[in-house]
């Protein structure tokens, strides 16, 4: 029923002529060149935001579980609730339009940086929650054992609690890493030329929205799947025999 025309990707973006070899040169680019550039933006936004989210999320997640530091715990809780309770798109606009109006030096920051901050901090709240869950899933005895050995608080987190907690939360971290790729599509709202914006623009230019959306969908699936496989590999390599998160379903503590 549907009449697909995949040659649309070989067309020059200005003249609309089908180019031989499907790829243009220099300033003459085809829609295929363009979709790879757009994919590049999606991947760079997602990966940079993921790094921020993992670092900030781990710090916030850990301070929420600290004993005897009620103010740090409150700070962590506020952080999580604040970033978790505001819709992502609203946060993107806040970072893009409101924050630079309040803090003039941020006016010169490229929109890429602002989007990465917004997406990274939004995801950091979710990762912080997972880190906290991972730490709290461990029996209290582990913490006491560390203390009994004479470890300081940073030491028993580093050598006893976190290695176990991270293993527990690898599955939800996998979902979060895949989510960040999908959430990166809101970046189009602040003029990042990524895949979603490509789909909207090229769909209109070529009058071939079905082919364009299908191609974009495939690229999103590939990106998310690669992350999924990387995380599965990490999960497998970091497995501790007999430990609860070894994936057998048996055991526990």
């Amino acid at each position, binding site marked *: 029923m549907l009449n697909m025309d995949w040659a649309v990707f070989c067309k020059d973006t200005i003249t609309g002529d089908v180019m031989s070899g499907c790829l243009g040169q220099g300033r003459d680019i085809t829609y295929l060149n363009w979709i790879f550039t757009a994919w590049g933006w999606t991947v760079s936004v997602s990966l940079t935001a993921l790094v921020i989210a993992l670092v900030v999320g781990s710090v916030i997640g850990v301070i929420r579980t600290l004993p005897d530091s009620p103010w740090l715990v409150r700070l962590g809780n506020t952080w999580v609730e604040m970033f978790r309770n505001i819709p992502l798109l609203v946060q993107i606009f806040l970072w893009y339009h409101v924050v630079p109006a309040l803090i003039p030096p941020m006016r010169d920051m490229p929109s890429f940086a602002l989007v990465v901050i917004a997406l990274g901090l939004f995801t950091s709240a979710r990762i912080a929650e997972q880190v906290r869950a991972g730490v709290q899933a461990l029996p209290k005895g582990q913490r006491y054992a560390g203390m009994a050995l004479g470890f300081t608080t940073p030491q028993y987190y580093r050598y006893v609690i976190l290695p176990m907690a991270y293993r527990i939360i690898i599955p939800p971290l996998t979902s979060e890493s895949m989510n960040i790729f999908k959430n990166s599509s809101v970046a189009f709202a602040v003029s990042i030329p990524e895949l979603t914006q490509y789909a909207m*623009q090229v769909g*209109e230019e070529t009058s071939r929205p079905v082919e364009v959306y299908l191609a974009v969908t495939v690229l999103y699936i590939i990106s998310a799947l690669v992350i999924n496989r990387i995380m599965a590999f990490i999960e497998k390599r970091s497995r501790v025999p007999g430990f609860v998160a070894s994936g057998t379903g048996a055991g526990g503590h």
Partner: protein
Amino acid sequence: MKKHVIALAAMSLSLVAGSAFAQLNDTLAKIKSSGTVNLGVRDSSGLGFTIGGGKYVGFHTEMAERIVDDLKKVTGNPNLKINYQVITSQNRIPLLQNGTIDFECGSTTNNVARQKDVAFAVTTYVEEVRIATKNNSGIKSVKDLNGKTVATTTGTTSVQTLRKNERASGIEFKEVMGKDHADSFLLLESGRADAFVMDGSILAANIAKSKSPKDYAVVGEVLNVEPIACMLRKDDPKMKVAVDDSIKRQIKDGSLAKLYDKWFMQPIPPNNVSLNMPLSESNKAAWANPNDKPMEDYAKK
């Protein structure tokens, strides 16, 4: 039992579809027998928009209402009612083809690609793609855009126009795409972009609505010309003749010019500001010789 129900449903569906299709190539007969015209209108375009409460206004919307008045005479049914149906850029062609709307007058560009699916009445408005900028930016024409940041809106043909001009004039500028017109204008207003390239009527509307309209100017040469026309179903010659005749009458007796003055030179709702957009030369030419030439023919000139 269940099978029977499904078979029955399928049969009645095909019957309904059959009768609908039978009348799709004779819109006038469909309008006459149903007593209603399903008019496609826009809710936020320069040529047709809503002022709330189910009221649709604008240059093309009002023109369409006058076309329906003339259709009353053509069909011999003086009690035709208008059923306003809001359409978007994405759904207007499918809705026209499946009979949900009988015709639409909004902001549809008549181009060769669309002529494969639909027909167009004679051109009633000619859109000119222009540059809007702040008065103090020093930008006076396309070549001044060299090294600047230029905003335009995702999903519009202006993006392509801009690329073509960039190539032709050998200049280099950074392109940012707003997600909608209001967003693109915000890019210009907040200084993230030095210029906003878009349809003249959209630029005028956004400037008129802005905090201080006198800070902005529409400058430079016309980058592209697009004929905007009412869209009709393909292969329905009777309907096309009826609509074209009505438009030609409105041009001839000067009522279309009055309507233009009302919507482009006088203060208009909802903010009671005037767009201040005198009739362009290309628009005058289109009215002098009513035609349904696609956009591509304008570029050849």
